[in-house]
């Protein structure tokens, strides 16, 4: 029994010890492609159009707003419609709050609000200022 064990250990050993050849050349980080603003927009529009539950929508929003850019109005519209699809009003309001955080000044925020006014009126979304001013 013992001899058998030793024998089997000895037999398996060379296989375990065999080395994987080290990879000498690391793939260059320059090879990572730079995403353009248009492809970013397109990616998130399709993401939000396909998002099926609240968690996914909020995860997408977190990722989308984590970049050093303000998402295009088409992304915002897709996100708000996704929030409507998953029946979460608060997330829709929060999207506009996120834009307010991301833009540089009040004029840009106002421009976003004006651009998205049709969607807001269609879905009945009040931004946070409207909710708390009255």
């Amino acid at each position: 029994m013992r001899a058998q064990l030793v024998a089997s250990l000895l037999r398996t050993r060379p296989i375990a010890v065999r080395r994987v050849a080290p990879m000498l050349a690391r793939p260059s980080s320059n090879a990572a492609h730079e995403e353009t603003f248009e492809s970013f927009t397109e990616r998130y529009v399709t993401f939000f159009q396909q998002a099926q539950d609240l968690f996914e929508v909020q995860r997408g929003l977190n990722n989308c707003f984590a970049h050093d850019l303000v998402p295009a109005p088409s992304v915002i519209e897709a996100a708000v419609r996704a929030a409507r699809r998953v029946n979460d009003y608060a997330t829709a309001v929060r999207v506009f709050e996120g834009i307010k955080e991301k833009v540089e000044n009040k004029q840009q925020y106002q421009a976003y609000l004006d651009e998205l006014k049709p969607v807001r009126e269609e879905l009945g979304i009040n931004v946070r200022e409207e909710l708390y001013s009255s």
Partner: protein
Amino acid sequence: MQALRLARPRASLRPFARSIAASASGTHATASPASSASSSVIPLSNVEAQWEQLSHDEQLTVHQQLEELQKKDWKTLSIDEKKAAYYVAFGPHGPRAPVNPPGTTMKVLLGTLAGVAAAGAVFIAVRSFAPPPPKSISKEWEEASNERALEQKMNPISGISSEGYSGTGFVTHK
């Protein structure tokens, strides 16, 4: 000894704790049958004020209530319902509660100023009890010291009695 010392505060606390428990169970007794009867026991217009005090079950009820509400067309929701939905999801409670309650900045500022003022008062008080400065710290005394030093030819190589000396010697007063 330790046990005796501990016994007293605990005994005095007990009736208080009992009264809290009684009042808590009292509110439960009034609230729970109503919540089982109808889901709208908590008025949504008041959710923001009540939220912290609600029990987990009541919060769950509000959550479910709001979930149902948000399935409707959002244009038909009232402002109160919208605010409640927003507050419950993203309001300043739980992990989003502000670290410092409002007014903390003013408190810290006033506290710091009070501390500095108290230190200043102590400084002035201690100074006012101090004895007068010694008689040797005066212009006359210092000039007299200079005269005495010259008389005795003090420090003739680099000091006050040296040739071409241009310093003030012992005089430190202007």
